[in-house]
């Protein structure tokens, strides 16, 4: 890959004895949308903070746009737009003032900042809130304002830490649509998310991360097909019936796992599984396409991470 926008080799972050990020390799092409998936505490946010030079790395190399992040932090951050996980807007300023104040950090002249603030507020659907008090904005509006703020410097790389967590479906779809537009315009996107649907909607490639390591990297659909199969059948049955279910699945499923009261059966042909179980008294049977979430749970475990 000739045109790499983000390139990390052997990236490590250690806190005392705890290794938050463990020998991470990343190669993200210009214009790509890359998703970082992982349970809480997997090291996603630490990785992102290293990317923009907020957190110093313990070891490894890290370049953005060909620049070493540790050596040229100001130049690197001028290329980046950051959407933080937490709301860190200026609560005393209106949305328009928030953007104009933030634009100054990038040395954007006042008249230009005013133009960009107006355009970006329209872009995220907040043009009619430009001069409202910030505490009159809903959580979703603040999130959209943060997206607008991250775009002020026309970043080449947009880094989004859980862009739609806590948003209603309308706001989520608006943000997705805007991110697709930015991608179409050539912006490189790196996002973390807990929503597999979001990763599938937006990402060319995803990485599944757990305990500081990348477990898998690749296009979401291909990863699912290669590792999980085409379909999943969810079965709930009494213990004696379940034993019979498992016996009949032999040869039909390439993998099955039990979590709480449900048996998850992964296979190429769900209809055949359904037919094989047709005469059994099952409490519940549901056939669906295998998803990224299945792969995610398989790799990172079904127990709570925290």
């Amino acid at each position: 890959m000739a045109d790499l926008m983000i390139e990390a080799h052997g990236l490590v972050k250690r806190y005392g004895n705890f290794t938050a990020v463990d020998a991470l390799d990343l190669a993200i092409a210009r214009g790509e949308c890359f998703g970082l998936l992982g349970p809480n505490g997997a090291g996603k946010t630490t990785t992102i903070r290293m990317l923009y030079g907020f957190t110093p790395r313990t070891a490894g190399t890290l370049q953005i746009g060909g620049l070493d992040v540790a050596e040229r932090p100001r130049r690197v951050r001028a290329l980046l737009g950051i959407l933080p996980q937490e709301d860190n807007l200026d609560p005393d300023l209106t949305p328009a003032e928030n953007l104009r104040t933030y634009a100054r950090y990038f040395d954007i002249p006042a008249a230009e900042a005013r133009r960009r603030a107006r355009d970006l507020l329209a872009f995220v659907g907040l043009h009619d809130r430009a001069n409202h008090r910030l505490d009159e904005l809903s959580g979703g509006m603040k999130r959209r304002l943060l997206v607008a703020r991250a775009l002020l410097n026309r970043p080449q790389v947009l880094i989004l830490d859980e862009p739609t967590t806590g948003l209603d479906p309308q706001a989520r779809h608006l943000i997705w649509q805007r991110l697709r537009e930015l991608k179409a315009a050539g912006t490189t996107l790196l996002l973390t998310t807990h929503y597999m649907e979001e990763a599938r909607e937006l990402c060319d490639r995803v990485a599944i991360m757990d305990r500081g390591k990348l477990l898998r990297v690749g296009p979401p659909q291909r990863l699912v097909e290669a590792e999980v199969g085409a379909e999943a059948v969810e079965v709930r049955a009494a213990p004696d019936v379940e034993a019979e279910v498992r016996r009949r699945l032999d040869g039909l499923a390439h993998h099955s796992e039990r979590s709480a009261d449900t048996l998850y059966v992964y296979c190429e042909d769900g209809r055949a599984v359904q037919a094989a179980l047709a005469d059994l008294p099952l409490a519940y049977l549901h056939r669906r396409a295998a998803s990224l979430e299945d792969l995610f749970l398989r790799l990172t475990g079904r127990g709570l991470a925290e």
Partner: protein
Amino acid sequence: MRRWAAPGVTWRAVRVWQRNLDSFRKYLLGSLAGSLGEPVLYLVAMGYGLGNFVGTIQGQSYAEYIAPGLVVSAAMWAATFEGTYGTYLRMIHQKTYDAILATPLTLDDVVAGDTLWAASKGATNGIIMLAVVAGFGLVRSAGGALLLLPLMVLASVLFACLAVLVAAVARNWEFFNYYITLVISPLFFFSGIFFPLSNFPAWVQTIAALSPLTHAVSLAQALARGTAPDHPAVSLLALMVPTAASFCAALVLIRRRLIK
């Protein structure tokens, strides 16, 4: 950024100062009333109320005697409040530092900008207080009054740096109560603003001489009278050395706190 690296402050610190001004504009009137109310109260209550019983000190009316010290202390109080509460609010509660650190600014720029801002509020308050005491006819020397301006800037920067250092180590808001009641208030009362320290035993004078405010007040009193200060070089050093030391310490501690 290395924790012990030399301060890497650039002109971009001004951006943080501008941000604080944008935010402060909304609270302009309330804030000025709050921070000026107290010194004016002291001037009227002590200068004219108590002053009636005191008579004259060193050939001046009591109000005239305390006016220069009150000007300097107005700067100290405002720089202290902004540097402690304001800095802590932005650094910890509002996550303003996190937001700015995603831009080309560095943490050193942000800390310097916040310190500069606290100093500006101190100097502004000092200047307004100077205008107030001048309005009461309590400044004898016009040239001295002009020289009070750079002195107030020095005192404001010093108390801003000290306050930011306190914010750097504070774990909660109560911490600032300790700093103000245990450090700033004693300085206010025992730095020669309200009575000459020469009446006190030598050991008290020695302790007072360690307080930078004592030096600022003695300089201010001399300038307002239009006389030469006793030890100008020593007094200036007593203001500037703790300024540099506390700023560097604040930078190191804030780097240690935020960069992880």
